[in-house]
């Protein structure tokens, strides 16, 4: 790369290697980039990938023990399948309607009607009782049960149909009733955590572990064992044949410095050197089920690109509108 005095290019070409990919779980490596990129990706995945969640609730009748706001809040937190969320409009930008939920571009309507009639049993109203007007958007549990029924479920998924009992909304006693209309809209978790598609997104710096073999050999087997066991996570082990200390799981290391402290306590400083690789990250992504982990990553990259585009546009014409539109400031 040409490094002229006029402008140093810091362009790098990050690489991604996916290690594990399930419907709601992914583990991948991100290399050749720095912490700002990795953290930006994490932040976008948690807070800026759009999903659909119940946002407006119109309660027709509620004689349950929970008050209206409480039920509305609980409904909002139910994850809805949102694969189409990227293509939907934010209701505030929707031209077809005033964001009142009357158009299919920005909202999905749900209905719930439950009434307990059994005297001896409380009726559990769950997310399975929600009736969606759009088959693509429905509570995650419902979708999973459906997929299982038609046999397109994730082959790695070990859950059974009985696990998809739905998310409990409220319990009703005999004579109590809950009837409502709810409108789900697209949103991002910056506004409210209910729109977050991510249960957990975290990354770790890949550790670089160097054992000073020479010094290590000065230890007795007993000392080695106690040193290996000083790490709360299983990072090192002793080879049963050679009786040498080997690294078994680098990524189990939590940067807790326990082994370093232990080495110092044993009077062998420099026994081990551990440093974080500045440009190598291991991501763990878990989703709520609203979108798949794959979608989450891809959508996050898309959103991130859109944001960067907005910055670039602003650079070009000194205009903030692109970014503002995304952030919803305008």
């Amino acid at each position, binding site marked *: 790369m040409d490094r002229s005095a006029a402008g140093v290019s810091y362009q790098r070409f990050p690489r991604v290697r996916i290690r594990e990919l399930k419907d709601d779980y992914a583990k991948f490596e991100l290399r050749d980039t720095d912490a700002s990129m990795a953290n930006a990706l994490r932040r976008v995945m*948690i807070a800026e990938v759009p999903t659909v969640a119940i946002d407006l609730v119109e309660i027709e009748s*509620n004689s349950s*023990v929970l008050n*209206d706001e409480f039920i509305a809040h609980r409904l909002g937190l139910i994850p809805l399948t949102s694969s189409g969320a990227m293509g939907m409009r934010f209701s505030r930008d929707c031209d077809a309607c005033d964001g009142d939920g009357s158009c299919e571009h920005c909202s999905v309507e749900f209905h719930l009607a439950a009434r307990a009639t059994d005297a001896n049993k409380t009726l559990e109203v769950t997310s399975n009782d929600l009736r969606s007007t759009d088959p693509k958007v429905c509570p995650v549990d419902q979708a999973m049960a459906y997929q299982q029924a038609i046999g397109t479920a994730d082959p790695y998924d070990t859950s059974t149909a009985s696990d998809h009992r739905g998310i409990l909304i409220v319990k009703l006693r005999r004579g109590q009733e809950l009837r409502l209309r709810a409108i789900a809209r697209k949103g991002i978790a910056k506004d409210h955590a*209910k729109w977050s598609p991510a249960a957990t997104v975290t*990354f770790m710096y890949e550790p670089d572990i160097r054992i000073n073999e020479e010094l290590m050999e000065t230890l007795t087997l007993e000392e080695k064992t106690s040193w290996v066991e000083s790490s*709360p996570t299983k990072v090192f082990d002793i080879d049963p044949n050679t009786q040498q200390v080997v690294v078994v799981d680098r990524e189990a290391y939590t940067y*807790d410095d326990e082994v370093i402290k232990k080495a110092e306590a044993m009077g062998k400083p420099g026994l081990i050197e551990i440093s*974080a690789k500045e440009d190598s990250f291991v991501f763990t992504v878990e989703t709520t089920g609203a979108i798949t982990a794959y979608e989450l990553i891809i959508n996050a990259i898309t959103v991130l690109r859109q944001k960067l585009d907005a910055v670039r546009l602003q650079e070009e014409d000194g205009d903030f509108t692109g970014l503002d539109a995304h952030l919803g400031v305008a």
Partner: protein
Amino acid sequence: MVTAAGKSSAATAAGKDGEYATLRELYRPHIESFDYFLDEGLDKMLLSIRPMDISHPSSSDTLRISLEKGHLLPPLRDVRMAKPLYPQECRQARISYSGEFKVDTLFQFNNGAPMRQTFNFGHLPIMLMSKLCHLRGADSRKLIYHGEEATEMGGYFINGGMERLIRILVLQKRNYPMGMVRGAFEKRGPGYTDKAVVIRCVQQDQTSVTVKLYYLQNGSARLGFWLGAREVLLPVGIVLKALIDTSDREIFASLTCCYSDKYERGKGVVSNQLIGERAQIILDEVRALSLLTRTQCLEHIGQYFRSAMEGFEKDDYQTVAEAVLKDYVLVHLQNNHAKFNLLIFMLQKLYALVDQTASPDNPDALQYQEALLPGYLITVFLKDRIQDWLRKSKRLIIEEATKNKSFEFDNSQEIRKFLCKHSTSVGRAIESLIKIGRANSQSMLDLPQREGMSIQAERLNFHRYISHFRSVHRGSAFAKMRTTTVRKLLPESWGFLCPVHTPDGEPCGLLNHMTSACRISSFYHSEGAMKDFEKIKDRLLAELVRGGMIPLSPKMEHTGPPEVLHVHLDGCIVGSIGSAKIEELVNYIRRLKLLAHPATPEDLEVGYVPLSIGGAYPGLYFFTSPARFVRPVKNLVSLPDGEPHIELIGAFEQAFMEIRCPDGGDGGRKESFPATHEEIHPTAMLSVVANLTPWSEHNQSPRNMYQCQMAKQTMGFCGQALKFRTDVKAFHLQTPQSPIVRTATYKKYHMDEFPSGTNAIVAVLSYTGYDMEDAMILNKSAVDRGMFRGDIYQTECIDLSTTRRGSVAEIFAKSSLSRDSSSVIDSDGLPRVGETIVPNEQYYSTYNTLTGAIRPTRLKGTEPAAIDYVAVNGTNSKGSLQKVNIRLRRKRNPIIGDKFSSRHGQKGVCSQLWPDIDMPFSANTGMRPDLIINPHAFPSRMTIAMLLESIAAKSLACLVLVVLTHYLFLAGSLHGNFVDATPFASSVKEGDGNPWKPKSIVDEMGPMLASYGFNYHGVEVLYSGLFGTELTCEIFIGPVYYQRLRHMVSDKFQVRTTGRIDQVTRQPIGGRKHGGGIRFGEMERDALLAHGASYLLHDRLHSCSDYHIADVCSLCGSLLTATVIKSETQMKSKRNMLGVQTVKPPKNLACQACQTNKGMETVAMPYVFRYLAAELAAMNVKLDLRLSNRTESHPQQ
């Protein structure tokens, strides 16, 4: 995070007797005392009222009115239909839970045949869960059916819909002569010293008379007691002689018997040779008055008292004197011999006190105190009120008889009319005792205070609610005292009053709380049967004699300590025993107590005050009386069955007992005094609330006190029956959790029914500056997901019958003109349930039946509310609604400025709500904290238990997580698997040997954490949420149970730009309610002056306050003389103003004094300055203003 939410349904618990027995136990003192009032106290009290004799002023007719039997009905909705009235209905309708009270009265005309009449005394409040309450003995199912909590424990009254209870007050221990030294005694008169022996004698009807035996400088003594509004003082010799037929020699011998020249000042010697001289002085005093026989003494007393004693105007002196002795002198004893003996004993004790052979008794020590319980207070006050009623009625009848000659006493109809006149005032007085806590009476009733007898049982949360019933107040008189001696924590209260649970500040040390194990002795056995004190006394006496006591017959033994000690039973000297045999007797009686012998009730107090040098006056005091503080301890005596036995001990005996801690140590005891008893568990010294602080022994003690305060302010579950509650204000947390780390008490008292907080993941780090100075950062996403969300419920009771103007009836109605169906107001004039209303929106309207005007009511305040509930309480005769309850619900989600606290006195204010992405995260779990607090909260406060809680909760959470992910089916069996954080657990000896566990809690939890891959000490490597880089330090993070406190900014913030001003000064008004400002006071002004912030100063104190432009006459310097000249042109322009408004002409002003407008100038000034000028003018002082244009601030002199 383990989300073990509190069980919402208590109804699942099987309806059996022992349900919530531990909770009910806490309320027993209240309920038992009231039960006694119902069972026996009322009738005993009525019988003890002396019949009222009225003699006709003109004829010789007499009328005797005596009271016979009281009838108290349970609360009824309709007396004729006998339809029960339930407490819930009372709360709802804001009425009282009370029953009709009637008394059978006997009229006896001229000693003829008595005639029975029944009088209605109005209504008496009925305590919930007492024997007259409809809910007594109800199981949880029935309680829920009647709209109560499943755990409803009663113990309070409902007055006007308010739940109020009578506060337990501390009184002097009954029937025990106390030696006291008090400066105030010297003020009784010349010659009085500061020493006296004081005894509070309690009669059968619970009324008490305090008798004081003062020591005079000349060696004599005076007996003092209060009669009416003054204290009467009698020479003790006269009283001694008047009590029984005795000789001077006998009195002399009785008094001096405690002195023997065999002993010098040694152990147990209480007397010296001076006693003979003093006895001589006492006898000489009587002889000086030439009173030689009993009759003479009685006549002397009678003569002195006849005018003061009511109802004895016609009786001879002897009868009066006997009544005085009966009613005022040592009233707990019926027998004059017993009184004589006790008086001799008191004299001996007094002399011992004077000679400093016995120490004074500390009236502030719990040892010499007992409790004033609701039932007893009501009995005493009711007696006073009925006596007052009799007095008033008598006066009315006599007045009528003197006025009206034809009025005859045999006209029972007329008599009845007069008696009925004041009868309902009796019920009303008791109601007001409950309602405002005032016991109005002419005499003090021997009570420590007249006001503040009752308090409201606030159900803010369960901690607060329980504490009300366990609180013991020392008396409001002490609150004003400058000295702090009464507030001190004394060792005598160990095990009875909680050393931790007292508020800081004004009531500190005066408002105490009973420990969780503390009980109060009562008239009932633990199984509920009434105690028969006569039988107990007889049997106990027989056992005492068997144990070696020499019974008293009828005069005192003529020896005294240290050879022989007196044996007292409830303030009566019953015998004596040689000091050598006394230990044996005490052990014998204690053994009987353990064996539940019928002679010894379980709460019998065996107060053995041993011989000592200059210590407490020795003796053996037995108490069976009610209202004593008692508590269970283990007796170490091994009985045949080998089981350790629980014995109830009292505060009096505890001071002389050897009770060891169960840690296996000897507590520094000498071998000659081995421990005879052992504490059951060290936590027995803590109150219920203090017991709930996990590992409180690891905290600095004031922090535990703060926690006790804050636990009572948390916003939690105030009740499960919230739907039926009509509290004026109720707080409710939407998503409470059961704490992971909890003490044994938590389960014992069913705190899961009323959880009060959330297990929040707390990170201890200073992350930006937003957690400085006890501020804390909350995770907005966690709040979004429901953490700490809550509501405030406010109930408004609208009663049109009380608000009506004149006689015009108002009803609820909606305007017929309004066809607006979207309005909140329904067709009945009341709001629709579930509707949200915004400030200033109409939500109910009333209709005036006369004018036909519709008057809507708008929502006050600045925040929206939801209509939670509307209830109709009653209709008028025409069937239209008159009284409704409207409950509003207001959202209170956490916002910046709300207050939170952990259970360790660590409170903080939310300073930022940050989204998940900005919070630091853990790389391996991805976990973000819910809450960030600053590490500086720990070093100076030393709340180690909070750190322990974090570690312990974390390791348990890991365990649960592992089990949940790997063995999903086991999840159910995890229930109840919480960390036990009972304080002092390591001080309890476990099994044999091994006095304490070698491991600390960290050593227990650390390996557990390490085994799950966490750091041994609970720290973790966190990464900045903003930059994704590793934080420099490892961060301590783990779940801590956090409480949300009820102080919320939404209820407190105050802001204003312009608004209402004061009429007089034109300055902004104060007060949040009226939209006023916050005072910018002198000290704030000083600060601005010091900073030289003159512009700001001018802005605050002038521009934004009472800015005013005044017209000043520069010629005469007056501020007040400016007047508007109504010139011709102005008049004209005024006429023109009827048309189009033209430019306002400049005011034409002139000085009234100078009669010219030449010198008129305008000056900006604060309006108060003008006001000052006006005020001064009113006092004929002229304020002269000199105006100048010069810029220098100081004019040249």
